[in-house]
C-alpha cells in the first residue's frame, strides 16, 4: 500500500471521525429538538460516508479485489436519514416539544402541527 493511498484512507477516516463527532456534539449541544435534528442527519451521514469510503478503499487494496459493497450502506443511509429525521420531527411536533423562543416562524408551528396549509387561518 503506497503512502498516498494510506494517506487518503487516513484523511477520509479522520474526516469521517470528526464529522461523526460533530454530529454527536450537535445532538448533545444544540438547544432544542429541531436544531438537534441537523446534527445527526447531516454531519453523521457525512461522517459515516467518510469512514465507509475509507473502508472501501482499504478493503479493496487489502483484499486485492474490488470491494464496493460499502457503497450500499452509504446509499442506504442517504435514503433513510431524511426520513428518520422527518419522523422524529413529526414526533416532536406531535408531542408539542417546544422550539427555543428565538426561532423565527414560530407562528407557523401550530399550522405545522395540524398539518394545515401555511396560509390557513388560525381557528383556535
Amino acid at each position, binding site marked *: 500500500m503506497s503512502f498516498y493511498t494510506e494517506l487518503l484512507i487516513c484523511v477520509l477516516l479522520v474526516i469521517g471521525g470528526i464529522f461523526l463527532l460533530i454530529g454527536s456534539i450537535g445532538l448533545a449541544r444544540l438547544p432544542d429538538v429541531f436544531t438537534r435534528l441537523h446534527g445527526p442527519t447531516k454531519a453523521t451521514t457525512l461522517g459515516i460516508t467518510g469512514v465507509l469510503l475509507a473502508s472501501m478503499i482499504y478493503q479493496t487494496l487489502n483484499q486485492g479485489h474490488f470491494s464496493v459493497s460499502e457503497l450500499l450502506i452509504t446509499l442506504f443511509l442517504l435514503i433513510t436519514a431524511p*426520513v428518520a429525521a422527518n*419522523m422524529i420531527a413529526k414526533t416532536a411536533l406531535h408531542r408539542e416539544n417546544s422550539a427555543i423562543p428565538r426561532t423565527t416562524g414560530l407562528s407557523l408551528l401550530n399550522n405545522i402541527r395540524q398539518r394545515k396549509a401555511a396560509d390557513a387561518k388560525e381557528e383556535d
Partner: protein
Amino acid sequence: MNTLLCIPLLVLLGTLVPLCSTRYSRTACAFLTAALPAIALFLILQLAPSVLDGQRFQTSLAWVPSLGLNLAFRLDGLTLLFSILILGIGLLVILYARYYLSHNDNIGKFFCYLILFMFAMLGVVMSDNLIQIWVFWELTSISSFLLISFWSGKSEARKGARMALTITGAGGLFLLAGLLLLGNVVGSFDLQTVLDSGDLIRAHSAYPIITVLILIGAFTKSAQFPFHFWLPNAMAAPTPVSAYLHSATMVKAGIFLMARFYPSLAGTDLWFLLVSMTGLATFLLGGYLALFQHDLKGLLANSTISHLGLITLLLGMGSDLALVAAIFHIINHATFKASLFMAAGIIDHESGSRDMRQLNGLWKYMPYTATLAMVASSAMAGVPLLNGFLSKEMFFNETLHQDSLGSLSWMVPVMATLGGVLSVAYSTRFVHDVFFNGEPINLPKTPHEPPRYMRVPVEILVALCLLVGIFPSWIVGDLLHSASFAALNASVPEYSLAIWHGFNIPLLMSAIALVGGLLVYYNRQHLFKFQAQFPSNDPKVLFERAIQQLVAKATWFIGFFENGSLQRYMYFLFMFTIVVSAYPLLDLDTTAGRRPEIPLDALSITGAVLLSIASLATVVWHRRRMVALLTLSVVGLIVTLAFARFSAPDLALTQLSVEVVTIILLMLALFFLPQKTPKESSPRRVVRDLGISAMIGGVVGTVIYALMTRPLETISTFFTENSKTGGGGTNVVNVILVDFRGFDTLGEITVLGIAALGIFKLIARMRLYMPSSNEQGRPWSTDRHPLMLSVVSQSLLPLALLVSAYIFLRGHNMPGGGFIAGLITSVAIIQQYVAHGVDWIKDRLKLDYQIMIGSGIGIAALTGLGSWFFGRPFLTSWFDYFYLPVIGKFELASAMLFDLGVYLTVVGATMLILANLGQLTTSERAVFEEEA
C-alpha cells in the same frame, strides 16, 4: 388347577355374578351370588380333614419376584377356622340380606361389594406372603368403605365410611411399614419363614418398632382402644354388613393378625404389656360404653369392641392356653354376635326403629325372634350351657394364671370380672329393654315377625351357640385344636373343653359377673345419671371436626405460600438459585485462573460503560416505559457490538435482527398495556429485590470470570477441521447449525413455529380496547401513514429482499444464513405494515403464514429425511460441486434446503404474529378506561 388357588379365585369371580344377575329377581340374585362362595366353602371343607390332621397346604405363583411378592396361599388350621367363619357366615348374611334390603336398594351392587369383601377377607387369612396379607388387608378396608357407605345419600353413612376408611387405612399403612421391616429383618416375605424365625426377630434391634407398627395395624382394624371409635359409626351400614363385617369377620382381621404373628412376635414383655393392656382397656371401655347406648346397633357395636378387647387381652397374656381361649372366643363371638346383629336388623326392619327408648315389649309382637335374640344375648353374657360361657370361663381362668403386671397382676382378674359384670349388664339391657319393659313408644311401624327365611340365618347361628355350648369338643374341638396348633406354630398344650370343671375360682367369677351384672342393670339409673354429667362427645363429630381443622390448616398453609403472586414464586426461584450456586462458590480459592487475559482498550471500556449505564437506566426508568425501551435498545446494540468484537459475526447479525423485532413487539405491548406504571414497590421490597439481583449478578459475574480465566479443551477443533470437508461450508458456526447440530436447529424452528401458533391462539380471542391517547393524555396524531415513510419504505422493500437473499445464499460460507435472512425479510415486510397499515397490505400481499410455517418445518425435516434413502441417519448432509459452462463452479448442499425451511418458518412465524396483531387493531377505537 390348584384347589387352593381356586378358592379365592372362585370368590373373586363371584363378585361379577351379582352384577350380571341383578336383573333377575332378588331371590335368584341372592342364590346365584351364593353359589360360588358355597362351592368355595365346599372345597375348603373337602380339604378340612387333612388340615385337621395337622397338614398344611401351600401354593404360590410368582407375581413381582423382585419385591419378594408372590401370589401365595396357604391353608392351615387357623386359616381353616377363619375361612369357614368367613364363608359360612357370609352365606348366611347373603340369605339374610336378600330379605333385609328393600326394593329401592341396588341389591346387585350390594352383593358385589359383599363378595368383594369376602374375597378380601379370605385373602387376608389365606395369604402366605407378608405383602400379600397387606394387599388383602387394605382391600378389606376399601370394600368395607363401599359397604358402609352403601346408603350413600345419608350423611352419616358417608361420614362413618370415611372415618372407618381413614382409621383402618392409616392402620394399614403402619402395618405395611411393620411388615416390610419384618420381611427385611427375616430376609423373606414368605410367611412360614417369618413364623419360623421368631427368635431371630425378637433378638433384632428393630423388633420393638416392628411390633408396635404391626400392632397398630391390628388395633385399628379390631377397633381397639384408642382407635375404637370408628366401629360404632360404621353402624350406618346396612345391618347385614354390620353382622358380617363388624362382628364376625373384618374386625377379627386384627385379631387374626395378632394370632398369625403370635409365634414371631409374641413372647416378650413389650408384646404382653401392649397387647394385654390395650385389650383390657378396650374390654372395659367397650362394656361401659355399651351400657349407655340407646341405639340397638350401637349397643352391639360397643359390646363387640368389648369382646374384641377380651380376645386381645387373651392374646396378650402370653400363655399358650390363653391363645386357645382367644381362638375359642373368636368362634363364639362370631356366632352369637352375628346372630344378635341379625336379630337387631330384624327388629329394625320390622319396627322401623333402633332406638331402645322407643322399642319396648316386642316380645308380644315377635316372640320367636325374641327367643332367638335372648339365647344369643345370654351367650354374650356368658350364661352357662351356651358357648359364651365356655370361652369366658377359659378367659377367667387364664386371667388367674398370668403375671404380666408383676405384683399388680391380681388386678387383671378383678378387671376381667368387672368386664364380665358389664357384659351381663348390657346383655340384660338388650333383652329387657327391647322385649319387655312395657309397650313400644311411637314406632313408625307395627312390629311383626319377619319373613320365614330371614330368620333362618339367625336360627342356624343360635343353634350353633347352643350346640357349642353343650357339646363343645364334639362340635369345635378338632377345629380349635388345629387352629391353635397353626397359630402357635408349635404343639398345643393340654386343655379340656368341658362344660363343668368343678367349683373353682373362674366359676365364682362367672357367678359374680352374672349377679353383679343384673344388679348393675337394675341400678342403671344411677349410672345413667353419673354418665350424663359428662359432655357427650360424639366421636363422629370430633373426628369430622379434626379433619376439617386439618383441611383448614392445610388451606391456610397453602394460601400462605401460594398467594398467587408471581413475584413470590420468582423470589423463591431466585433465592434457591442463589443458595445453590453461591454455596459452592465459597470453596473457590481464587477467582482468576491461569489463562492470560486480553488487554483492555478504550473501545471495550466505552462499550462496557455504555452497557452498564444503559442497563442501569433501564432499571431506574422501568416505570417510564418508553425510555426503558430505548435504553434496552442500546443494551441490545452494545451486545451486538460485543459479539462482533469477540469474533462472532453470526451472533451479531442474529442478535441485531432479533432485537429489532423484539422492540417492535414490545412497542405493541406498550400500546395495549396500561400507559402508566404507578410506583408500587415498598422501599423494603426494593431493597430486598436489589439484594437478590445483586447476589445473582455477583455469582454469575464471578463464575463467568472464573471460567474465562481458565483454559479449556473442547471438542470444537473437530468442527473447524471437518467444516469444509464434511459439511461443505467455511462458516463453521453455520455448518454447526445446519449440519453438525442441525437437529438443534430443527428443534429451534419448531419452537418458533409453535410460538407463532400459540400467539395466534392468544390473539384469536383477545378483546382489547385501544387507548385513544398516549401517556400524556394527548390524542394520537391523525397522520396514519406519513408520506415520506410510505414512499421510501416501498422502495426499500426490494432492496431488503435482495439483502436477505444475499444473506441467505452466503450463509454456509460466510456469516449469515436462513434465520437471519428470514428475519430481514420479516422486518422488511413489517416496515411495510408500519408505513402502509394492515388494510393496504392485506389487499396486496396474499401469503398464508400458517402454511409457510408448516411447510418450513416440513421442508427442513424432509431434508433430514432425505438421507434415509441413502441408508444414512437423519440429517446426514450432502454437498457437491458442479460446473456449468457459463457460471463456473458452484456448490449445492442439502444444508441449503434445510436453511430454506428455516427461512420459511422464520418468515411465517414472525409474520403470523405481527400481521395478526395488526388486524387486532383495525376495529374501531373504543374509548379506553383505565382500571381503578
